[in-house]
């Protein structure tokens, strides 16, 4: 057995807990998870059945943690995991899973399949079977501080430009500010309107806020590739920055897995609770709305619909907030079929978007999103995750659809009612 395989098996073993054992014990091979998975539904290939993607993890569980499995392997029976198996499963655990978690809502015995995939990736990383694209993005995140290679210098230049364009102030490293705003690299490079939008909203709400030069990147390649060590280090950078500035809240930007990493996995990764609260930007905007700190004016002229980012809605619990906010600025907001916690993924979550091996397959799955969108007849699609936004734009182009994709925070900023006091100021 190769050293890397041994490391992989060891990592699988470490991940296996009572929930995972209960999931494998309960599976009756009903196949319903296939029907909930965008990769199976889009291709019809049974190898994309979610529970099948977990075969390496199941085999380790059986051989190491069940009486009969242990007995069988002592007797030289039972099928041991090989490097070839893991090589073969790389496509199944990475290219064809966006960690969207739809299967976890459908399984009749209640198996949290995405919980297992996330953990199975730990074994894949340890045995050296993560895809190249994800490895490179993770390396950039660890060394440069951003999976897309955005440096602090670049970020500050972009912020300066936006400051000049908008005339709004965008402070760095303000001690004791209420809110620390994080960014995702995609927002810095592609959707930097978000920066101006947030500055405008914070000003109107009268909130003290800041960027942190030591921690501006919210994304976390560690949880996508499946390395808790690296994920913990990336979370720690944010925690250190936020606690140094003594902020009350850290605002996770329009990015799905950044929210998952910081809000839900983070404290468990670093092994302690934070000295601040984490909010997704839409939670913050909805709080401002409820407190009357922001008001809007005018409504969207077009019919709009909302794409639910998996990590924010289904896996994150921010379900009603985007709906409240959209209803504030639209009289013609329609839901697509399966909207909310059962919505279909954009196809590029869980590291798929940075994994070129998966590109063709990802675009194939977009036909499901297209079907959903076609039923609504809208030309304007709203979302709150820059990765989803990028993937949606990609799919819309591929399928030659006539549709615009916008971020919800920017839309709110566009409709923001500027109070007289501020206009005078």
């Amino acid at each position, binding site marked *: 057995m190769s050293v890397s395989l041994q490391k992989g098996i060891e990592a699988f073993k470490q991940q296996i*807990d009572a929930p995972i054992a209960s999931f494998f014990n309960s599976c009756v*091979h009903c196949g319903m998870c296939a029907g909930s998975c965008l990769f199976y539904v889009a291709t019809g290939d*049974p190898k994309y059945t979610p529970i099948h993607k977990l075969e390496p993890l199941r085999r380790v569980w059986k051989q190491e943690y069940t009486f009969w499995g242990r007995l069988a392997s002592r007797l030289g029976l039972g099928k041991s995991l090989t490097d070839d198996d893991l090589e073969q499963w790389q496509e199944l655990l990475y290219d064809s899973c966006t960690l969207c978690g739809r299967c976890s809502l459908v*399984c*009749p015995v209640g198996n949290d399949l995405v919980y297992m995939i996330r953990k199975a990736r730990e074994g894949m990383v340890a045995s050296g079977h993560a895809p190249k694209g994800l490895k490179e993005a993770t390396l950039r995140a660890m060394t440069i501080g951003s999976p897309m290679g955005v440096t602090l210098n670049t970020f500050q230049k972009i912020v300066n430009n936006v400051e000049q364009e908008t005339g709004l102030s965008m402070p760095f490293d303000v001690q004791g500010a209420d809110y620390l705003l994080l960014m995702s690299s995609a927002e810095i490079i592609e959707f930097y309107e978000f920066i101006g939008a947030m500055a405008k909203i914070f000003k109107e709400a009268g909130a003290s806020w800041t960027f942190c030069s030591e921690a501006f990147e919210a994304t976390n390649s560690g949880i996508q590739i499946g390395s808790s060590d690296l994920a913990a280090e990336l979370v720690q950078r944010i925690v250190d920055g936020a606690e140094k500035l003594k902020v009350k809240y850290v605002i996770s930007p329009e990015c799905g897995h950044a929210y998952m990493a910081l809000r839900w996995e983070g404290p468990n990764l670093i092994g302690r609770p934070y000295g601040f609260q984490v909010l997704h930007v839409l939670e913050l905007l909805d709080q401002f709305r409820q407190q009357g700190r922001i008001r809007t004016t005018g409504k969207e002229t077009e019919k709009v619909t909302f794409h639910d980012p998996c990590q924010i809605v289904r896996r994150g*619990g921010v379900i009603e907030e985007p709906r409240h906010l959209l209803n504030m600025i639209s009289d013609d907001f329609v839901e697509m079929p399966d909207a909310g916690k059962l919505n279909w993924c954009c196809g590029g979550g869980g590291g798929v978007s940075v994994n070129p091996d998966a590109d063709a397959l990802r675009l194939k799955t977009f036909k499901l999103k297209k079907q959903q969108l076609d039923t609504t007849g809208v030309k304007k699609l709203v979302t709150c995750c820059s990765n989803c936004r990028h993937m949606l734009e990609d799919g819309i182009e591929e399928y030659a659809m006539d549709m615009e994709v916008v971020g919800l925070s920017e839309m709110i900023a566009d409709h923001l009612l500027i109070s007289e006091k501020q206009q005078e100021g």
Partner: protein
Amino acid sequence: MTTMEMLTWVRGPGLTLSIVILVLGVTVRLIEMLMLGRKRDISEAREKHSGRYGWRTVVTRSLTPLSATDTSPVIFLASYVFHIGFFLIVFFYVPHINVIRELLGFSWPSLPAWLIDALTLITMISMLIVMWHRLSDKVKFFLSGFNDYYSWFITFLPVVTGYFAYHRLLLPYNDMLIVHILSVELLLASLPFTKLMHPFTMVFSRWYTGEAAGRKGVRI
């Protein structure tokens, strides 16, 4: 061994043996599962007391929305019918209740024999549909192995032998009764070693998943 001696054995020591294997087997499997533990989640819960969302999922996951997946309505229905039918036959047929009273000392009202007879027929048909689907559906066939076919077989056997015994088909009543009881004992003794463990472990898997989602504010 005469037929009566054989009948006495399967009703006595045979049944005891299979129940002992069942209880010990299920206990060992649950213990080896729970011993693995679950780390406490220290992220700040959106919903406190999330345990109740776990229990909620234990109940609600029996009603997976058909629209969320692509399972055909026929299979969906057959799966419910076979589970409910099997449960009613096992626990509400007079002779079965009598055995349970002898073992545990308490009992409950039964369903009329004609209804149990009809339910048995329906259960058999739905089980055949479910097996036909396992063989013809590409996903299910792809996933299936010995455990799946064996589990189906040992569940089907008591139903069909019970039906034959009741209708005096194939073998004399007492002979068929012996076969029926033996098939039940095979089912009981095999349960801990097959996927038929799922009624026991499912309570845990549903609870874990429902609780984890519930604490994030997602009711599933």
